[in-house]
């Protein structure tokens, strides 16, 4: 019976090292307190009923010592923990883009090229994978123990997360946030494959239309193009090259156009108005399904060939950029 899950992602060694340190501290202090308490209890056991022990005088120095030492230790824990945390929360550029929708009680996965999976995720090893996740109903949580990776998927917003598999194999995928009756059934598998096998997997099976293409269709259906027509005098701003660029808002602030911003611009346009445009864009809150939103975002992303250098979120990695409609 093994005591630790296998290490199959680039995070795993770092998380486990941190865990090792914390186990050491925990063991040390638990044993220290345990042995002190027990040995005092035995060494100073009551000899005679009426016995009154001498008064031990308090010592400010001692209090200081056992305040400062723990303080120092927790600071180490904090900084080390924060370092690992940043590694896990900061997606690198040039990652494979995969779109995940959680819904009671299944995981729907869409690859950029149109491959769709259910409760299964195929990824190559040695290449960062960037997940853009949305929920259609309640909160779910995407959890792969072997990757030491977990992220809540909260309805009404995108959850961006990433990981890099390092060891080929088949690993548990759990839903870690309680989401109702079949919460424990919302599980699946992550297949980490050697790049070659992965390519083989991609080429096999009907890819269907790419995400961006589907998004383009919706862009017509929802009549977005009536305002966002790529021509002078259009009622809405052009969306070409928008993704990753810095947008100037009314009232002088600026914002980098990432997924969160795009989503907000569609579901709650009034929240942040683009400089020089009237607040005429209707809200599409509740009118477009989560999958539809993901497709629209994929489409808008596809309109920006190569992201402005240093822009927060990376664009789809070049070799797998979905075909333009």
């Amino acid at each position, binding site marked *: *019976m*093994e*005591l630790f*899950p296998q290490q199959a992602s680039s995070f795993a060694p770092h*998380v486990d090292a*941190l*865990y090792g340190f*914390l186990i050491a*501290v*925990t063991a040390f202090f*638990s044993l220290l*307190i345990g042995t*002190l*308490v*027990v040995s*005092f*209890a035995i060494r*100073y*056991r*009551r*000899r005679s009923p*009426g*016995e*009154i022990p*001498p*008064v*031990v005088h*308090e010592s400010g120095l*001692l209090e200081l010592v*056992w305040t400062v030492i*723990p303080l120092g230790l*927790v600071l180490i*824990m904090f900084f*080390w*923990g*924060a370092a*690992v*945390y940043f*590694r896990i929360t900061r997606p690198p550029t040039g990652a494979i883009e995969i779109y995940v929708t959680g819904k009671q009680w299944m995981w729907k996965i869409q690859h950029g090229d149109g491959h769709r999976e259910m409760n299964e995720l195929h990824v190559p090893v040695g290449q960062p994978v960037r997940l853009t996740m949305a929920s259609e109903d309640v*909160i779910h*949580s995407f*959890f792969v*123990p072997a990757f*030491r990776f*977990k*992220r*809540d998927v*909260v*309805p*009404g*917003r995108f959850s961006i997360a990433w990981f890099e598999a390092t060891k080929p194999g088949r690993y*548990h995928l*759990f839903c*870690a946030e309680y*989401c*109702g*009756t079949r*919460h*424990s059934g919302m599980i699946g598998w992550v297949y980490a494959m050697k790049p070659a096998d992965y390519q083989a997997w991609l080429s096999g099976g009907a890819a269907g239309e790419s995400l961006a293409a589907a998004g383009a269709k919706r862009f017509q259906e929802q009549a977005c193009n009536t305002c966002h027509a790529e021509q002078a005098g259009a009622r809405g701003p052009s969306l070409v090259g928008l993704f990753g660029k810095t947008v100037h808002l009314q009232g002088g602030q600026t914002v980098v156009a990432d997924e969160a911003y795009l989503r907000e611009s569609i579901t709650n346009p009034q929240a942040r108005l683009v400089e020089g445009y009237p607040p005429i864009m209707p809200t599409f809150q*509740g009118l477009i399904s989560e999958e539809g939103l993901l497709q629209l975002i994929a489409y808008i992303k596809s309109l920006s060939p190569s992201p402005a250098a240093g822009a927060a979120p990376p664009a789809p990695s070049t070799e797998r950029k979905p075909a333009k409609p």
Partner: protein
Amino acid sequence: MSTPAVIDTQSPPARRVHYLNARYGVASWLLTVDHKRIAILYLIGVTFFFAIGGIYAALIRLELLTPPGDVFLSETYNKLFTGHGVMMVFFFMIPGIPGVLGNFLIPLMIGAKDVAFPRLNLLSWYLFLIGGLTALWAVVHGGVDTGWTFYTPYSTVYSNGWVVVTAVGIFIAGFSSILTGLNFLVTLHTMRAPGMTWMRMPLFCWGMYATAIIQILGTPVVAITLLLVAAERLFHLGIFDPAQGGDPVLFQHLFWFYSHPAVYIMVLPAMAVISELVTAFSRKPIFGYRFIAASSVAIAVLSFLVWGHHMFVSGQSVYAGLVFSILSFMVAIPSAIKVFNWTATLYKGSVSYQTPLLYALGFIGLFTFGGLTGLMLATLGLDIHVTDTYFIVAHFHYIMVGGTIMGYLGGLHYWWPKISGKLYPEYWSRVSAWVIFIGFNLTFFPQFILGYLGMPRRYHAYPAEFQVLNVMSTAGASILGIGYLIPLVYFFWSMRYGKDASDNPWGATGLEWQTPSPPPTENFPVTPQVTGKPYDYLTAQEEVAVG
């Protein structure tokens, strides 16, 4: 500190009039405003709800004995752990020690005749009972499947359980908690006997004072939050529903703003008990009185600044995560100070291993371990992996079951002679202490491993490779259950057949031991005058010789 009360020892207790035999009949109990009788009412109430919660726990462990969800349906299982969590937290842990030991002891310890607002005190108990029965009714008849955290939008839109009734039940009990805190705070401020300065107060009172602060400042927020959940469910207000532009994470902020401090409502009273036990059974003044008192208040204040550590993966900003992490570490320091001071108190003491001390030592060990695992959770990089797994379940059971219940049982044994006027059987009480300690560790230690291996919590069925550890856990739970039943039995037994207790069976200091056991209704024949520091065993020597 001696008072004429001591003389009462000679007169046989049987004929002496005290709070138990002063009046008879059901009405004399249900309408009493005597803080000691109200304490007994709480004792009955919380034991009942603990039994319910315990039975739920037993059923949970039964289901988890085998990987496939074969004993209960998923719906049923979800209702089991929700019922378990709700009953244990809101109707056992939170009212437990304050309601029973706090009510009984605070006036005795500060030399008062009663709490500041006796009628309010009785009202608190009724609110507690009504709230508890309301929730119980919902949990049994129909059931709730949201988990004790009521996360939205599941609880507001998707759950088909009796969320509203449960929320209302907790809301009512919340007011009981607020009023108790208010009552204790005012009592400690205004009812102290002449000479009982703040720095002469027993540490138990300091702990209850800190607890009261949290009950007063925290509970209203969760009350209104649950009210909003109920309202939203009934009228579709959409305040927490993303479909209408609401923000589920806002609910989490509001919920944890209370529910993190609430965990200190659950542990501060236990710490307060331990401070009394270690001095009494090593016959020494507590080491670092001021530091322990101050750390209680420090915990109370800091506890309001760390709620976000329950939301590290919920999508709150990275910087919020950093702030909540560092603050969570800070709140650990005062707890550390307490542990070290308790340990130092045993040093060069005159330690006698009677049952209450066994429980106290158990608390110190298990709380230390559970608390340190809390530090692991406060560590950002690690919590991402272990959050919402059995690691969390193990963490909080170590503190709440291993810590708080040990403290509660220790205190119950220590003050039982004062409460009932009888002595419990020492042999059996030691046996049960050991059974509980062993059963407990067998139940919950494997869950740490399970959690790190990745078994998510609130899972009705689980992959086969997790079975061995789950079987160990279930085995432990059965032992633990028996361990809890033994005291239940011998406490009842002792009320009839137990030996009569002297006024001060442990030879301890403190005003509660200066009055007869059980105390008269007005607590002290003559209002005591306090002349010295607490835990002053040297000057109390001659009394000790008597006791």
